[in-house]
């Protein structure tokens, strides 16, 4: 992966901590888990506990207005807010976004609320299933809405995969910038939560708490903001055992690229059995600070790696020290990167 000359010019985030990257940083640095709320099943009782850490209600002053957003999904609203924050953070006027902007979108589960609602309607009576809802279930609907909002008629693409698929998106965004396809590229990774995905997480471990949100990074060749200085990976695997065997290499290769005290932003969720390999891999090193966002905001699935990168960018800006972001992934590949000024 070649990020030479590419800067993270702006960042934005929506998370359980609030509708800004600053609120995310503050919550994660405080380290106190945000309150979880019970996630009910529609129509019946669930005989086991299941909670979520949802995104708080949208502050009215942050509501973006556009015909496409009237019935847009939560994932779209999170993504628009994060994208606009990233553009503003870079100094762009969000009312007139820069020409030459591309969009790469990453998600894991996608527009689950509308998908569940539409499928419920199909099972009830397919003749009355809503034609307004169905298009919103498609994976690339959020990217399309953002493109429409920003007036971007160029390259707009959606990737589906593990949260750290955003590293492949970053790689392509850097290539697009290097080759002149775009001048700048918005990378957005997002997820929305519903009772089905919250419940699915409890099958992995009862203590896992689902969350949601969006992280956005504006990549640019403008020399403004931190850079992704080094990347380790992808170290590819298809099983949890393979993953565990690769993580020591991920850490070791990354540490050879560090020349100063660094902060670690890891992927740990607070469940020892799930965290064991990652904890062990990074343990031999001294860190200025260790941040584990999932222990604070919950498991935001497809958005989680983007939120780590947003945090890493903010930390690098504030501390002037390098930040290691550990993204071991869940089922395909492990990545780590160093963000530095």
């Amino acid at each position: 992966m070649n990020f030479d000359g590419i800067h993270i010019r702006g960042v934005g985030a929506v998370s359980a901590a609030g509708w800004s990257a600053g609120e995310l940083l503050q919550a994660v640095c405080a380290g106190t888990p945000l309150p979880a709320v019970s996630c009910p099943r529609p129509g019946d009782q669930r005989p086991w506990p299941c909670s979520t850490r949802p995104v708080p209600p949208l502050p009215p002053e942050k509501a973006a207005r556009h015909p496409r957003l009237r019935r847009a999904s939560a994932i779209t609203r999170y993504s628009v807010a994060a994208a606009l924050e990233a553009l503003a953070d870079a100094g762009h006027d969000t009312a007139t976004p820069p020409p030459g902007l591309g969009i790469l979108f990453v998600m894991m589960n996608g527009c689950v609320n509308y998908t569940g609602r539409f499928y419920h309607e199909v099972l009830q009576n397919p003749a009355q299933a809503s034609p307004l809802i169905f298009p919103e279930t498609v994976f690339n609907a959020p990217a399309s809405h953002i493109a429409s909002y920003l007036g971007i008629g160029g390259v707009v693409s959606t990737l589906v995969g593990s949260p750290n698929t955003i590293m492949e998106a970053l790689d392509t965004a850097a290539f697009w910038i290097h080759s002149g396809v775009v001048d700048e590229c918005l990378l957005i990774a997002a997820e929305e939560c519903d009772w089905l995905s919250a419940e699915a997480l409890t099958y992995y471990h009862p203590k896992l708490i689902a969350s949601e949100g969006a992280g956005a990074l504006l990549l640019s060749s403008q020399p403004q903001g931190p850079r992704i200085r080094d990347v380790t990976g992808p170290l590819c695997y298809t099983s949890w055992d393979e993953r565990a065997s690769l993580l020591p290499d991920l850490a070791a290769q990354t540490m050879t690229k560090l020349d100063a005290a660094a902060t670690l932003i890891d992927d740990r969720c607070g469940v020892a059995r799930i965290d064991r390999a990652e904890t062990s891999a990074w343990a031999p090193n001294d860190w200025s600070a260790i941040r584990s966002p999932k222990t604070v905001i919950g498991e935001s699935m497809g958005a989680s790696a983007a939120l780590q990168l947003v945090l890493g960018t903010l930390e690098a800006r504030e501390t002037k020290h390098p930040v290691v972001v550990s993204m071991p992934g869940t089922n395909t590949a492990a990545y780590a990167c160093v963000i530095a000024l």
Partner: protein
Amino acid sequence: MNTCVFTSTTVRGDSHLPSAFFHFVPTTVSQRIAITGAGIVSPLGLGWQQNEQALAAGRAAFRAVDFFDTDGLIAKTAGIVDLPQGKLFHSVSPHKQDFIDRGTRMLLLAVREALTQAGRTDMSGIDAFVIGTSAGAMPLGESYFEHARQQPARVPSQLSRAEHYQSQRQMNCIADEFGWRGPVIIVSNACASGANAIGWAADMIRSGRCKRVLAGGYDALARLVFAGFDSLRALAPSGIPRPFDAQRDGLALGEGAGVMLLEAENVRRSDALGDVTGYATATDLHHLTQPDPEGKAAIRTMTTACAQAGLSPRQIGYINSHGTGTTFNDGAEAAAIAAWAGDAVKHIPVSSTKSAMGHLLGGAGAVEAVICLMALHGQWLPASLNVREVDPAVKFDLVQKFRSASLDHALTNSFGFGGTNATLILQRRAA
């Protein structure tokens, strides 16, 4: 050897539009992207040979959907793949076998054919696997939903459903089948996904990031998606798609997979089946599901892909259109082709193979790219079936019967929900 090397100003300077209106890779590398293997699974058959025979015979492949309930829906038929009986995956655990989606099985067959054509037995040496899909393993998601609604208690198999609903887990099954480890990139731009995946892979090679990439697209029929298109009144009540017919009444859904093994020219100089010479993608902002009536984004992608290939419209020997059979799509695409081709339009043969196999959604762009490759290789043109009266908007040479032809370059269009437009151009390798 195509020696056309474009600089960024070649396209950007010719246009008043900002650069991001185009996907154009003005690399300093003038290499062609060789296609050294291709695989196709469609309702017309399994593999290149069966599909070629069916296209030559002008056969359509629609029948009643029998693996989910269509009661209450307007449409009842689709293009359905007959998968072979028996175990397709040999290196995947018995437990996982139960959770391998129908679409993944189709994709495996297409991958196997592509590798075999390239003289390979596995995926060793392949740098990345780039796959487009619109619905992924949707049937597993449906099953997860139904179990969750019906069973208040915890059901252990729900974990496997939740895991294997994820497209990347499905792709892991293919990786495991070949003992391969490498990056898997899943592009999901609705019905342009397959074309975008091939274009993405070509870019990975053009940029020098990869030497060899397996790329394509797939989708299997799923109840939610079928009901979704039905709710939009996009499916033909007649069950017969008639792309570019004046009285067309909608599309028919299908399923399938198409895969190409793409290699850097300097890696593989001979034995190639063809080349990917042009790719462009752009976004139509008109509406989430309806194209701009003038097809402006399609004009941009066809223009830009041709510029990348160093071709004029007159040099395009065949267009495999997106051609769904809906009023909106075919009108916009016909307008776009006419505007893009100008005076050359009447000389350009165009057809829609969706008339024979249905709309394969995320698989469509890849399968239709493979059909273009087959057409270039065999020097023939597949037909648009079922046309009774040609739509007056059609200015091109609508191919209504399979015929022999002499062609060196084929273009394929893919348009998707969300406004994603993609154009690929393939070139024949002389025998």
